[in-house]
């Protein structure tokens, strides 16, 4: 009987962590469904980005209020989880505050955690107000209806509950210490919980223990729950932001990749003496599919981008197309990509491999109208706090439309015909290309 809580604790820990491991494995598998892309170069610059952009959140502080509050929540969240270590040891061995032997250092740490927990709650409240009362517009675009909106608030509620449980636990604990309850090591009062403690004064030892143990269990079960909630949530970015930033594009923002299969083909066309066996010769069959019509045509970094997206809408907020009422929303591009890879992941779960389900990312999730509204201005990639690249997905989908379906808007087809025929997007003769030098009206 005495060991029952310990056994129960071990069981739920094992259950929580193995479920989490299963989720992560599935996420990694889904990401790997994407095409290969080499992002292993310049490792030191990549680590520097992880330190500044991911850990240091350099892009978040562009808006100082949201930035600083976010750093508090992030830091609080990570640091307070060191508490988890003590919780796990206490839980497994039935000890209580195993680290309290550290005396002054222990008090210092718990005080520090408590202050952080309090600041996290304050920040979360501000976030909630910004989202629900001030209704900051980027939280209310069409793609934010339904689950996306609920998810955002759920995260705020869960964080508040977890932090409160931690503070309530310490407050009840302090009262129990005062009553000299057996098992409750004397640690003294702590920075924040001492203000909560008076609320419990006068309670019986049993009620206090119920509160203390209740909060303790709530805290640990809550963390396990939250960990497993990530899979369905934009909160996944707390983990994915790191690899996502590490593997993000390092080239100048303006640079788009050149399709290699096209390069081989063009070289062959331009050089009649080229050895047709040296490169992948032949018609379009061998060139493979050009551009992307579905998620599996995207590379794995683009898929990881979609899982990392925080749905913050900073990209959409600065997108010139979206700002002027067009359908395009770079955030929606990321969210649809995630929806689609999830759907494909489910098919793979069921059938062992992907089987055509009659749907594609292009058309069923993202429409050509959205794609053609993009000015490729890179405002979205500049704004994204986790270095996502919605533009690369837009360009890959456009490539499929143009190269595989010849489905560009008519005016663009005209522009391209002009380039083909006379080397300029307009219908001017090549012979007139230097006319400007003799047209000086001022001279």
């Amino acid at each position: 009987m005495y060991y029952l809580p310990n056994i129960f604790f071990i069981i739920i820990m094992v259950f929580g962590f193995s479920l989490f491991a299963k989720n992560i494995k599935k996420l990694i598998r889904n990401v790997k469904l994407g095409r290969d892309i080499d992002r292993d170069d310049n490792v030191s610059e990549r680590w520097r980005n992880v330190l500044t952009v991911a850990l240091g959140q350099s892009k978040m502080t562009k808006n100082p209020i949201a930035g600083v509050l976010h750093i508090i929540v992030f830091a609080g969240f990570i640091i307070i989880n060191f508490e988890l270590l003590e919780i796990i040891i206490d839980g497994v061995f039935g000890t209580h505050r195993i680290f309290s032997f550290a005396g002054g250092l222990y008090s210092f740490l718990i005080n520090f955690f408590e202050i952080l927990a309090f600041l996290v709650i304050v920040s979360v409240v501000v976030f909630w107000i910004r989202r629900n009362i001030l209704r900051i517009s980027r939280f209310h675009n069409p793609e934010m209806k339904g689950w996306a909106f609920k998810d955002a608030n759920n995260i705020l509620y869960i964080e508040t509950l977890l932090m409160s449980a931690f503070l309530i636990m310490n407050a009840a604990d302090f009262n129990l210490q005062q009553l000299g309850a057996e098992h409750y090591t004397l640690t003294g009062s702590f920075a924040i919980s001492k203000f909560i403690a008076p609320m419990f004064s006068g309670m019986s030892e049993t009620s206090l223990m119920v509160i203390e143990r209740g909060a303790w269990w709530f805290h640990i079960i809550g963390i396990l729950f939250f960990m497993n909630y990530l899979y369905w949530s934009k909160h996944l970015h707390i983990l994915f932001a790191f690899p996502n930033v590490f593997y993000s594009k390092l080239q100048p923002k303006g640079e788009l990749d050149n399709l290699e299969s096209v390069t081989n083909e063009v070289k062959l066309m331009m050089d009649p003496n080229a050895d047709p066996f040296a490169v992948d010769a032949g018609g379009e069959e061998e060139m493979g599919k050009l551009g992307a019509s579905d998620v599996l045509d995207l590379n794995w970094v683009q898929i990881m981008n979609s899982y990392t997206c925080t749905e913050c809408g900073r990209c959409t907020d600065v997108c010139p197309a979206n700002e002027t009422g067009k359908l395009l929303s770079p955030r929606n591009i990321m969210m649809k990509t995630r929806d689609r890879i999830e759907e494909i992941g489910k098919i793979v779960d069921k059938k062992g491999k992907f089987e055509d389900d009659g749907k594609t990312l292009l058309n069923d999730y993202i429409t050509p109208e959205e794609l053609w509204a993009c000015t490729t201005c890179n405002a979205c990639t500049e704004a994204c706090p986790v270095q996502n690249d919605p533009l690369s997905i837009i360009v890959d989908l456009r490539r499929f439309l143009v190269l595989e379906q010849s489905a560009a808007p008519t005016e663009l087809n005209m522009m391209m015909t002009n380039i083909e025929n006379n080397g300029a997007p307009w219908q001017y003769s090549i012979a007139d290309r230097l006319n400007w030098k003799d047209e000086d009206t001022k001279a």
Partner: protein
Amino acid sequence: MYVPTMAELTAEGKKPDVLFWVGCAGSYDERAKKITRAFVKILNAANVNFAVLGTEESCSGDPAKRAGNEFLFQMQAMTNIEIMNAYEVEKVVTACPHCYNTIKNEYSKLGGNYEVVHHTEMLQQLINDKKLTIEEGEYTGKKITFHDPCYLGRANDVYEAPRSLINEMEGELLEMASCKADAMCCGAGGAQMFKEAEKGDKEVFIERIEDALETKADIIVTACPYCMVMMTDGLKYKNKEEELKNYDIAELIEQTLKL
């Protein structure tokens, strides 16, 4: 105006220090041609040993690539690279940020490796090297706002060269609410220039011209032929063409130097 072509110089057994890549807009668009001439006059005044490709130049392929036509882009790129490599071009200057970005970043992977500079960067360099001196003149004390072209700014991190030129002219630089890395697009990039906009409630260039008007500047300066078209359309839409002028930086310098 002295505008030698690569072919001419080669025939004379000479080699220029830099190729001036004019670009399609700079070659054919009425407004942009003025910018091209302004820049050439400055190059002449500073005794820069340059040449153009003339009729051997062809579209850089930027609008095709951004429209998704990778095939056409690479055809253009390789044709241009072949010609530039044949002339042993080492350095390229252009007044078009789209050509700049494409030649600088995308040609290099296809066998075209050149030092590529934007005309604002080159002008700044000429001043630094004392080959060009700008003293106060027409634009001294004038209220000037600068619209960052996406393909110069965000795409390639060139923010300071155009601004320092405005400073050289002692103009009063008034920044728009969104500028530099946060600057709003004019609406022309990504091949939008060549098509009607999708359904929405506003044209992008109107939104951007409103940003410019808010600064209460007298002159809107940019450094891209496409941005130029959009700013002009914006001023027309707002019926402000008389009150406000929009120029490329090269034109401001041309006027300051009375070339």
